[in-house]
């Protein structure tokens, strides 16, 4: 189809002011937060309601034009990069919180709303929406549903899929369907809500979601512990869980991250420590007090060289500087930053960190690792310069070792960032040919013309 005709058709559906097609505007939607993926779309369209999305999909399906749903474009797996040209479907006009149902603790939210805005909206009612990815202040709800985002509280509170209870979805052929709803228990039919959650825009366009909210915990206790060996840190993590305590957060920083943060921030971190653990338990004040003591005991038993308890919320912020600044400081080292999210069973944490450290040494690349120790979701962060071809080859070799290592330990390629294009080459390694075929069959059933975010997640189909 001629580009001019496509643009004219889109203007008919959403109005002239909601269609962008200058070369400059198209370029601004050619990338997301993933290094090295720039592809020019043909048009950027901002629909204002579900009927317009349906009309766009009908047209695109008929003419076999690729469609890429996009929110804030902050994902780390090239999930919104318009790989094969076509239509970037900008969902940011879906910007309303439609309803807050306090009897059912459900928020009805359009997908263009920024996640932090949902939290700000429900906070006065003593509620929280727990998924809190690092991009909580910028990411759109739709993006976090498509990528099934996690965050710091994953261990205790789960991830996005645990809070999405219903969806409004426009299928590839333009049909509008509703999955799930306000029912806590709902076993009527396939669990389509879970299928679309984490589908990375390859199965349908999500326009609205019913989100489960939970009461804000009454009390917290935070602490930081320093370890001289990775084994001790890893054992402490396992022992805390074995003691039947589920901390709200349990974060780890490796030596490379600690040194980088200290170099930039000069906050007095122990640069010779093998790892730092940051922990927080939350809930009823009595239980928090009890769990705090038990955690301290476990930390001591596992040879924590130093443990500091947060005395106040400000003191906690100060203690957590190391974690908060880990990515920014690593990113400042070099121009390009790959934040990976390979995840292993918690018990394999130490082994995995050793694989990462060895890969960094073997291929002479800079990797700092931090992440969510409680759920085994690590962020090996590789800093490099995309413009240096030779270095990039070494980076990819190191990545290969890391991903293979994670899968061999019974882990997964991605804990929370999604597959997109970045981790596609390793998908079969994790899922096998049969697993990939099953996923491809689902894709072909729902999107027979392969127009929805083509080439991503399961690759060519």
């Amino acid at each position, binding site marked *: 189809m001629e580009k001019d005709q496509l643009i004219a058709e889109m203007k008919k559906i959403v109005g002239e002011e909601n269609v*962008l097609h*200058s*070369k*400059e*505007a198209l*370029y*601004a*939607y*050619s*990338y*997301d*937060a*993933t*290094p090295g993926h720039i592809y020019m779309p043909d048009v950027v369209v901002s629909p204002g309601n579900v009927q317009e999305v349906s009309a766009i999909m009908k047209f695109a399906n008929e003419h076999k034009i690729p469609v890429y749903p996009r929110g*804030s*474009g*902050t994902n780390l797996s090239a999930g919104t990069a318009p790989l094969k040209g076509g239509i970037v479907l900008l969902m*940011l006009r879906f*910007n309303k919180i439609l309803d807050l149902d306090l009897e059912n603790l459900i928020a009805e939210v359009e997908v*263009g709303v920024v996640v*932090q805005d949902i939290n700000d909206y429900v906070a006065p009612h003593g509620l929280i929406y727990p998924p809190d990815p690092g*991009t909580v*202040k*910028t990411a759109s709800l739709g993006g976090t549903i498509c990528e099934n985002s996690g965050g710091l509280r994953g261990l205790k509170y789960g991830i996005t899929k645990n809070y999405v209870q219903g969806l409004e979805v426009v299928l590839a052929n333009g049909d509008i369907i509703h999955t799930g709803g306000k029912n806590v228990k709902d076993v009527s039919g396939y669990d389509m809500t879970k299928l679309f959650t984490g589908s990375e825009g390859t199965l349908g366009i999500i326009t609205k979601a019913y989100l489960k909210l939970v009461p804000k915990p009454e009390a917290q206790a935070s602490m930081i512990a320093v370890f001289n060996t990775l084994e001790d840190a890893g054992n402490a993590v396992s022992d805390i869980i074995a003691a039947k305590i589920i901390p709200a957060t349990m974060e780890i920083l490796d030596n490379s991250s600690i040194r980088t943060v200290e170099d930039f921030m000069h906050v007095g971190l122990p640069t010779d420590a093998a790892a730092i653990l940051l922990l927080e338990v939350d809930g009823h004040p009595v239980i928090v007090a009890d769990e705090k003591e038990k955690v301290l005991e476990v930390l001591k038993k596992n040879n924590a060289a130093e443990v500091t308890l947060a005395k106040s919320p400000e003191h906690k912020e100060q203690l957590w500087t190391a974690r908060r600044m880990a*990515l*920014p400081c690593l*990113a*400042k080292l070099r*121009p*390009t*930053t790959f934040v990976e999210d390979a995840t292993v069973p918690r018990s394999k944490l130490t082994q995995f960190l050793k694989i990462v450290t060895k890969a960094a040494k073997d291929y002479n690349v800079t990797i700092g690792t931090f992440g969510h120790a409680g759920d085994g979701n690590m962020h090996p962060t590789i800093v490099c*310069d*995309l*413009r240096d071809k030779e270095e990039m080859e070494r980076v990819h070799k190191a990545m290969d070792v890391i991903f293979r290592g994670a899968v061999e330990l019974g882990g997964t390629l991605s804990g929370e960032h999604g597959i997109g294009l970045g981790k596609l080459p390793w998908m079969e390694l994790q899922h096998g040919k049969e697993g990939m075929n099953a996923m491809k069959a689902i894709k072909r059933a729902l999107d027979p013309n392969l127009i929805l975010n083509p080439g991503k997640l399961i690759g060519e189909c």
Partner: protein
Amino acid sequence: MANEITAEEINKHDATLLKDIDDALANCMKCGNCQAGCPIYRETRKEFSVARGKISLMQAILSGKLEITKEFDSMMAQCLTCKTCAANCPCGVKADELILRGRHATIKARGLNPIKKTVFSLLSNRPLFNTVLRMGGMFGWLTFKDIPDKNAVLSRLPMPGMDPNRATAPLASTPLRAEYPPVIKVDNPRYKVAFFTGCTINFMYTDMGKAVIEVLKENGHEVILPGAQHCCGTPVHVSGAFELANEMAKHNIEVFERYECDYIVGACGSCVEALLDYPKWLEDEPDWAARAQNIADKVREISQFLVETGYKTDNLGAINKTVTMHDPCHMVRGIHVTEQPREILKSIPGLNFVEMKEHDRCCGSGGSFSLAHYELSRQINDRKCENIKATNADYVCASCPSCRMHITDGIVQNKMPQVVYHPIQLLAESYKLGKQK
């Protein structure tokens, strides 16, 4: 046609204009964190409105994928230079400065746009600039109508480039510097303080300038008002017309070098920032940069100066009002002066200080940005006005005449009761009330 210039050649030429910031641009990791704070992105939610988008576009020019077009120019223009992106960038990328480089490249490639060309040629001719603005003030009553109690006016006639309903500042019938001798003597001066007035205070908000002079006198300082001082150059610099801005900087350096003074004070965050940045503006000319540094070492924002050198608090009269404060972008993220104006306001007896939500968020003015993008800057301003309204304050203080003008407009449009002042005006008023006791 062997002489025809090809698109490829244009792209190649455009790319050379940004060559030296290749590394600085590459440091942006495209995380998109700048979306969270950008006042313009918050309204438009368009990728090219935010720093990440603009940096990507500049990289596209560098790699020859795009050329410098009118569209590129208009995208680069969508920035308030409020520095929120730079202040929150995890990679430490100074996107605001890079965007100015993008604007600079645009002028190199495409020339200045016609309106700016007219305004800047006026600015480059100081005597003519002074005459025009002075004449404008003398006949201001013909063209503008007063809004009672707000020190604001509405235009009676359609003005080119300005929304007819916009409340603006009146041009003073006599500019500030024409009202005073070049040196205002006091007995046994504590310090000799030169006052860099800036254009808006000299030609429009003379009440702010008078307050600065009164407060300096009250505290035993001799005030020097160099008559030949000129615009600080900020409006020109942020347009990317670096060469002209540098000429203006050199002029001001020469003028202030002529006076023996201990300090140079300004009452506008943007002007003060410019004076402090002259060494950086002129870094390619080491001799000038050194002279600029000598000047910069003496520069203080007025509240900074007062807190640093001490000011009288034993003779202050009570102002029984509630006040809230807006932190102008170039005060909070430019020169990092936020505590001193608060300290001054809190020292005034009777004055009840209430902090507003998002007090350091841009009001949407962005100097000339609000002229070219009035509707957008009003949307940003409305949010500021909401936050002001929630404080129930009588007064709003802002250490920047441009913010004062823009917030006053927002208050008028939203039919709110507040009046906007510079903090120093309330201090001057308090001294005055103290004498009436």
